């Protein structure tokens, strides 16, 4: 295979996903000519928590696992932020945010440790963990409420460069790059992909498989906590029940973003673009005067079609 062809295949998500986003944006403008800078701003803000949920899920899925507690962890971070930041100053709120991210790492560590120690499959552990974290979120904040200082909430609002680049997008890029790039370029990133791709070969190459699985959940926990903070930013309050939505939609973004659910294949950029697409769908439906609840149907259908397509491809490959 020639070099460009190989590059194309390996980075298909990188090429296709921006085109898809552009296509959806173009369609949005066509449907709704008044779609302007403000709408782009709210799109970027709306996509922020979903993109971070997808980031959390991506790390775990790349390592060959699956995390059904992402949304609940986000909810915990969200309600903790809304409760503690309500009467805090801007500086204090940044300090609290840092603590919450640390807490996210610790929660991810708990998930990972239970998983490795109990030898129960990822699915069961994180399903149960999801309900436990969800319960904790409800204990911290029974009803949607709380808040955060305006300066903190405004981090994600506004634009740069004459309204061309929404701050929320900059924030997303900065945060994901700050967490993921060091991981990706370190030995951890390499071992993460390795255990997701082939655990036996990775083990024989000298990789500490269990430790890497554990660390994947820690990094996932960090992303979940940041996602919870982003949720506080977009909604201004804490809502303990936001959980399930982001678990499912985050997984959808991962699948649509070209990450293989069997692990080892895919990247971080695909799911980020997919998060924008999944956020654009309900927006477009509103502009089209179609019931935005169709958005959920379309998301569900998209997941099902993408995974079925993957299954079909596998079937065809096995039967030459």
């Amino acid at each position, binding site marked *: 295979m020639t070099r460009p062809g*190989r590059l194309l295949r390996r980075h298909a998500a990188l090429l296709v996903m921006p085109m898809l986003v552009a296509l959806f944006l173009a369609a949005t403008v066509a449907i709704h000519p008044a779609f302007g800078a403000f709408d782009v701003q709210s799109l970027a803000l709306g996509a922020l928590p979903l993109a971070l949920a997808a980031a959390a899920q991506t790390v775990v899925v790349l390592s060959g696992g699956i995390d059904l507690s992402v949304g609940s962890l986000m909810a915990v971070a969200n309600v903790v932020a809304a409760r503690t930041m309500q009467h805090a100053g801007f500086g204090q709120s940044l300090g609290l945010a840092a603590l919450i991210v640390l807490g996210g790492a610790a929660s991810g560590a708990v998930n990972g440790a239970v998983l490795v120690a109990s030898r129960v499959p990822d699915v069961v552990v994180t399903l149960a963990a999801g309900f436990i974290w969800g319960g904790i979120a409800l204990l911290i904040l029974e009803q949607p409420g709380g808040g955060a200082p305006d300066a903190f909430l405004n981090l994600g609002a506004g634009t740069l460069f004459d309204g061309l680049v929404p701050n929320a997008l900059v924030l997303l890029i900065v945060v994901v790059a700050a967490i993921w790039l060091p991981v990706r370029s370190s030995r951890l990133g*390499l*071992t993460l992909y390795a255990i997701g791709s082939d655990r036996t070969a990775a*083990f024989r190459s*000298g990789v500490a498989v269990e430790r890497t699985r554990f660390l994947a959940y820690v990094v996932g926990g960090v992303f979940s906590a940041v996602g919870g903070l982003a949720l506080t930013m977009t909604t201004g309050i804490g809502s303990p029940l936001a959980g399930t939505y982001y678990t499912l939609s985050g997984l959808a973004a991962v699948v649509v973003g070209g990450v293989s659910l069997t692990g080892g294949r895919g990247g971080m950029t695909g799911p980020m673009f997919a998060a924008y697409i999944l956020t654009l769908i309900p927006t477009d439906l509103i502009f089209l005067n179609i019931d935005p609840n169709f958005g959920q149907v379309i998301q569900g259908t998209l997941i099902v079609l993408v995974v079925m397509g993957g299954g079909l491809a596998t079937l065809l490959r096995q039967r030459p």
Partner: protein
Amino acid sequence: MVALRAADLQVRAGEVHALMGANGAGKSTLVKMLTGVLRPDGGSISIRGTPRRFRSPLAARQAGLVSVYQDPALVPDLTIAQNLRLARTPPDVVRQWLGRFGFSALDFATAVRELPLPTLRLIDLARALAAEPDILLLDEITAALPPDLAEHVYAAARQWRSLGRSVIFISHRLAEIAALCDRATVLRDGVTVGVVEPAQGGEERIVALMLGAPPEAAARAGIAAAAAPSGPPALEVQALRCGEKLRDVSFALRAGEVLGLAALEGQGQEELFDCLAGLRRPDAGAILAAGAPQHFHHPADAIRAGLVLVPADRVRALLPQRSVHENIALPLVRRLRDWGGLPMRAERARVAEAVRRLQIDTRAAAEVKRLSGGNQQKVVIARWLACGFRTLLCFDPTRGIDIGTKRQIYALLRELAASGAAVLLFTSELSEIPLACDRVAVLFGGRIVAGMPAAGADEATLLRAAHGLRARAEAPA
């Protein structure tokens, strides 16, 4: 199950040392211990006189022992460069070695998934060499490797020897062992039975050691020879080809006959049995059951045509958590029309009859996983007795089974043949072919290279043919 009882292996500095043994002799268990995958129950491993205990492949590597396996330890979704980083290997040295192997143009940014297996083995070898191990363990990496690439492997092993380091070389090819190795340790039934110098006519001694005690001549006494078979063959295979390994195989098997198949690992026998059992589709050739051509899409088709499989790996065939009864009765509910109420009484009678004929010990009948290996294998065979068949395909059915049960199974195969069934039996234990078979065919490189009556097939002849060597005029004593 004890795979390894008393294995001694001494490898000198500056030698290429062969590790030999028939299938199931304990080679792979020994390799796993040497490389830190399994921990020994007893005994010790020393490198340069220092006792070592490895907890992982990484620890073995750090102690100076690096292995290259038949299936390369390369992660498919990573590039070559990334795989080298994974094992902390300097790419420049690897590139030098690969240059010597004739792969100087290889792009290290290529994903491993996109490369053919022989290339991967050499990359794995180059990676191992670059780690500068004191001991290099090559586990059957020349199997199914083209001759020119195998030549590079020999050259690397010789160079390692000239540097005063050691190579442990595992292979089934006697010829290459004679040409390459200084000494050979032979394992049988988990015990070291001898150390031989293969170069000076040691081949015959290796064969003798691998065989162990001469087979009991009278073992077949009491088993009546089957009546001369007549009519169309129960199973006929014509020019069958499947994948890389099964190239061109034809034979006919008559009702009332047991045909033995002898082969080393990976000569195409897996593919042959998979095709006959409906697990794989052949690329070319024909399968005829009782004279009618067959195209199997699913094992159900093969079962309908009367071909049933007893696989080597019992774990593959059994429902470990279910009872002996349910395991035996499984094929009885295979069709859609069996989904309704179970004819419990009739089923129980059929299962009981099969259990009785095979003398299955039913004391731990609630969960098949708690039965002994021999009893598990009997359950797999009993399943087909209860279901009915015309041709029984047995793939190494006595692997890891005690001698008493083995005898029972062979006696049963004879009995089945006597009552009109056809049996195709692949076994890795060549000494047992005369016990059970009427005829024997030898498979090498995906083709049948020899055929003879089982009565005259002594093991030395079979082993030589299975190694691709021409049969000699007289068999050694």
